[in-house]
């Protein structure tokens, strides 16, 4: 009886095919995910109501057409901005009902009463560069984050940024609810109050 040999399929070209596919996916891959500064736009209100904000509770940040930054009329370098904003938000100059126990600022009477009252007004020219605007937004967000981190550390022993990144990682329902609750509490201590004015042609 003769043994019939089954011819073996040559698998050598399999690698070539797989390589071809591999190269296609290598080229078309963009592993990067989207990152950015999240913001909430104010809704358009039908009835215009005038809200009176005390002068001392307002920090005016202006960006002109030459990409120069001025805060309350004083020209400023971007590297100083965060410091100034932190000092303004954390001032806690109010007394009685308006006082702020957790603020560690100078308690200056001519600066903001408490973080809940402090408003940053951001205005830019139509000619302002987008990169400058983002840099300023970044610094403003950084100032809020710095203060929130401090309070979160004090209250829960974990910084605000850590809580936020934990929230994105976790799948546990109870943990999500707990973290959301904490984040909300911290946000209410330093609510982000940035008011943007429609771009004007120039200053």
């Amino acid at each position, binding site marked *: 009886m003769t043994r019939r040999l089954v011819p073996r399929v040559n698998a050598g070209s399999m690698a070539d095919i797989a390589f071809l596919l591999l190269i296609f996916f290598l080229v078309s891959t963009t592993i990067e*995910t*989207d*990152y*950015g500064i*999240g913001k909430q*736009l104010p809704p358009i209100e039908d009835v215009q109501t005038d809200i009176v904000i005390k002068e001392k509770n307002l920090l005016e940040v202006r960006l002109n057409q030459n990409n120069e930054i001025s805060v309350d009329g004083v020209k400023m370098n971007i590297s100083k901005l965060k410091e100034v904003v932190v000092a303004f938000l954390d001032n806690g100059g109010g007394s009685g009902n308006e006082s702020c126990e957790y603020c560690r600022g100078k308690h200056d009477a001519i600066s903001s009463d408490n973080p809940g009252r402090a408003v940053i007004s951001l205005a830019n020219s139509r000619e302002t560069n987008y990169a400058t605007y983002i840099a300023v937004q970044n610094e403003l967000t950084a100032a809020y*984050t710095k203060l929130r981190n401090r309070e979160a550390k004090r209250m829960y022993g974990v910084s605000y940024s850590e809580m936020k990144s934990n929230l994105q990682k976790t799948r546990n329902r109870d943990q999500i609810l707990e973290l959301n609750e904490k984040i909300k509490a911290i946000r209410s201590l330093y609510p982000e109050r940035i008011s943007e004015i429609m771009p004007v042609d120039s200053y």
Partner: protein
Amino acid sequence: MSILKNKRNKALPEISTASLPDIVFMLLFFFMVATVIRENVLMVENEMPMANQIEKLDKSDLVMYIYAGKPSSRYRSRVGDQARIQLNDKFADVGDIKAFVMAERASRTETMIPFLTTALRIDKFANMGLVGDIKNELREVNALKINYNTRIDNNPD
């Protein structure tokens, strides 16, 4: 003795390449899973500014993209070199944003609409006039959740 024997046996055994496809397939599957094929072909220059106070946009099905910037060099002869908006695969005007948002909303379920985020992918050399116009249009259609897409700046502070 054994060494001597080996020396006499001159022909080396051929290295088997049978496992090569397996290795390549493994890599292939990794890239297949990790791949996000670009939905839109960029027609504008889109180098985004740097920032470090950033958050991740997690669910891509809850994001709609608005691109803006100067037209890429090959479209410049046709549309000029002023900064333009790109929606899906076309150049668009500020007035088209409303229709775009409505179309994006219509393609999603009712429950997803409140969580829909608009990602603004704007070139860093664009001016704020254009960005302001886009934001105003978004406010008018009540698409208030936005995200200024940036690149990650790893410098601390």
